[in-house]
């Protein structure tokens, strides 16, 4: 009983550590540098028609 509990506690620590490393990776990549923009990005609606929109590039 003790053994399985300790195993589970270690497992949760490992899972937590994995998340932590993921977070460190994000900080190093600059994912948290701009916290304003991402929430607007999902509202950009042109990504599905990029193919036809991308052709013309000027007057």
């Amino acid at each position, binding site marked *: 009983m003790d053994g399985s509990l300790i195993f589970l506690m270690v497992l949760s*620590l490992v899972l937590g550590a994995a998340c932590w490393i993921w977070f460190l990776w994000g*900080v190093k990549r600059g994912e*948290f540098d*701009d*916290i304003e923009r991402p929430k*607007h990005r999902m509202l950009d609606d*042109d990504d599905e028609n990029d193919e036809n929109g991308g052709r*013309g590039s*000027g007057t």
Partner: protein
Amino acid sequence: MTIEAGTCFHCAAEIPAGIDVVEQRADATLRFCCHGCRGAYLLITGAGLDSFYRSRKWEDPAPPVSFSDRFEDPFLARFVHATPEGNAMDIIIDGIRCASCVWLNEKIIERLPGVLQARVNYATGRARVLFDPARITPAAIFSRIAEIGYRPRPYTATEAKRGADAEKRDLLIRFGTAFFLTMQLMAYSFALYAGYFQGIGSNMKLYLQLFSFAVTTPVIFYSGWPFLRGAWRGVVNGAPNMELLIAVGAISSYAYSIYATFAGGEVYFETAAMIVTLILAGRLLENAAKREAASGVEALLGLATGEARRLAGEQLETVDLALLVPGDLVLVAPGERFPTDGTVVAGSSDADESLATGEPAPVEKHPGATIIAGSTNLTGTLRVRCEKGAADSFVARVARLVEDAQSRRAPVQGLADRVAARFVPAVLLIALLTFAGYLVTGARFESALMTALAVVVIACPCALGLATPTAVLAGTGAAARFGVIFRGADVLERLSRVTVAIFDKTGTLTRGTPEVAQVLPVQILTEDELLALAAAVEGGSLHPVGKAICAHALRSGLPFAVAEPTTALPGSGVTGVVGGQAVAAGSYRYLSQLSVAGLPDEEELPIQGTAVLVAVANVYAGTIILKDQVRQDAPALVSYLAGQGIATALLSGDRTVTVRETAAHLGIETARGALSPADKRAEVERLRQEGAVVLAVGDGINDAPALSAADVGCAVAGGTDIAVESSELILVKPDLERLARAHRLARRTMTVVRQNLAWALVYNLVGIPLAMTGRLTPIYAAAAMTLSSLCVVGNSLRLGRR
């Protein structure tokens, strides 16, 4: 051709009378204020990005831009740096106002062939562009940004800025680490709580405590390192601070818990970890608000970078501003900024010097006139002889003033710090006395130590530490919702203690643009007729005075036909034919040069404002007076401040007469005019030395030194970015009523902080004696601590309501 009022489809500015730039679309006719805007529209729709116009959220028109700045590769090449993914360049894009602007810039830049990636940071307005140097040049990227109506300039990170960025990341990592570990820790703690009430195997308890110990250690010694270091510095300097309080709280509960793990008993690891985590969270949020404060100087110096067109003999060459030396001749076209201070040698024009003087009306520039660096040339091309190098120019001097004021600002000791300074030594003393007392009365060393530690733990400054950050957080959050941004906790505190408020005039208490105030026709004409005549000749003018007259005529519903100007003298006046008669409108000097009959004496004209005189068929027909009107909400703000016992003063670069009149109109006690940016700063410093807590409100570059020297600098948005970045309190909209609300909120916030501190002290007053007698069982101590923290947080949250 009769025209009607309208706004430009692209930049939302009012379309000047007589401008007829249209674009036919299948379903509508779109009108533009100039060909540049139409070009930008065509470019944007051509790229399939017209959803920009639907999704953008602009309430005011965009500032005017030139659309066709020249960019030189040799100059820009210095700002390119190689990265593994390609060449990268950081570009500051001025004019970004909403998320749609960010989106538009990203798409437009990314669609240039050769650009690999473009990412625009919404918060800083900075773009990082990755590109293939073989396929595209930096100048082409810059030109494309300018073509859609934004102003790009190269960005170079200063050493200080890079340091601040590194510090921000460091703090984020420390907080993230503390957060993850504390979450783990809480799971173990809850198991231990349950075990306390229901019974737990001693082995199991030991395991849980050991795991708690393992996860808490990095929280204290890694995440809490800034506090430990700060606390040590406080001890060394003999000035107990907030950090010492945090460190004592965390370390004592940590040490006590280690002891309890091995000696048996209850542990308080979660208290130690929570203190560190919560305080780090507060710091992180505070830093986010403060981040931009240092960039003001950078933006100001941005005005002093770029290129100038220098005349070498009769040859024009484009040179970097920094290379200009006194004596050089430069050519400045309309719409360009003057590169450095100098004297006009040839040509005539108007210059917008509002950035230096605060005076909104353009100043006439004829040969011999002096030029201020950073001001904008409006109507004609000028040849200017440089008097100073760029490093000594007006903007560079103002930048130094701001930098100087920021570095000299004394660090304020927050209320919590002042409490901590007395509280920490007192607690330590009590703990020591407890320890000594038990020993003397014959208790065992171990139980004496336990009791003394219990005193420190119960006095743990959870509530004390949270008192200020939570109230400030709730207060600044509430302020942000009504459009006021506080940069940091200390700003709230200082604003609540303000005793003197000084205002800039133009653009702050007044609208900052001339408006028709009085129409004084000669007897045979009506006011409307005179206005219509003036509007007709001024119709095509891009001069602010001409625009104001036309706008006023349009608002009054006067029909007028725009006359073709026959002659226009930049900076003086314009003549055109209206209904077969020659109509002239312009300054007194312009009309007397035309030898107009019946002109009044110059002294008879009102001294206030700008006078535009009108003549029909060379006979004087009347005068139109334009003034910078006071904002509607200004009187209410001044009377609010007076009601709060705050002295008011008006400091302006404008003429003393005008300043006095405005002050008298608003009921402001002191008024001083004709002040330079340095004078304003000196005045602020003088007041501060007399013991006043000074609030400075301004909007211009010329206010920046005063704003940074004041206890609280408040920038009114819509002004220059430099003013915004030099201040700590920002009104998001030019609405002065918000300043009064911000002041009320600051006072309420400080009341809540005081309540919180008082509560925390009362809690300690009860808790410490109980701990000293050794009667406080651990679980009740934990519950009391939590309850006290919840009270403080709950009290703070009241600020966010209503």
